[in-house]
């Protein structure tokens, strides 16, 4: 039973680090700030979740504190990215010229 949990943890850790790699590739190759933000934030949040749960399955005594860290990262990383996107839109950074939808455009500044 412990051996099965150990191998499941190894698989989850591998999936998490591959998510880090894909997020970084998207961070380099996307054309625009907002595309880069979407590509990096979503993948690294899910990567941290998978990595920490996998580490908790590999070392079962640590799983409570690892779940606390994972919950904290999953709660706060989208909040930080959303605040950063709104601030950079107000700061005047333009969208890519092939982006077609801009739902924030007509809204009043709150």
């Amino acid at each position, binding site marked *: 039973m412990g051996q099965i949990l150990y191998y499941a943890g190894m698989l989850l850790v591998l999936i998490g680090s591959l998510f880090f*790699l894909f997020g970084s590739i998207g961070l380099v190759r996307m054309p625009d700030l907002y595309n880069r933000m979407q590509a990096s934030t979503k993948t690294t949040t899910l*990567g941290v979740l998978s990595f920490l749960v996998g*580490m908790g399955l590999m070392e079962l005594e640590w799983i409570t504190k690892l779940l606390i860290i994972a919950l904290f990262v999953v709660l*706060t990383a989208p909040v*930080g990215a959303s*605040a950063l996107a709104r601030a950079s839109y107000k*700061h005047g950074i333009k969208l890519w010229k092939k982006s077609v939808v801009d739902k924030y455009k007509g809204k009043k500044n709150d």
Partner: protein
Amino acid sequence: MNIYFFYIIISIISISIFLSVYRLLRGPSASDRAVALDALTNITTALLVLIAFLSARFIYLDVALVYAILAFIGVVAVARYMEGGL
């Protein structure tokens, strides 16, 4: 067998850190650098947990938790500064 698995994990994380640092150095505006720094802090949180696992010390997980909290505060401070409220 297990040590090769950790070699693979550390190689993948190192490549992703190099790509993020490329965007951090190259990014045209300040927001690009802030986004790259956000991705780097998430990767570093996972890397601290990996270091705690490899050196088998439970106390190093506190470092990862405090680092995650400080990274969140840093990103929100950069956002408030760019919005003009700080």
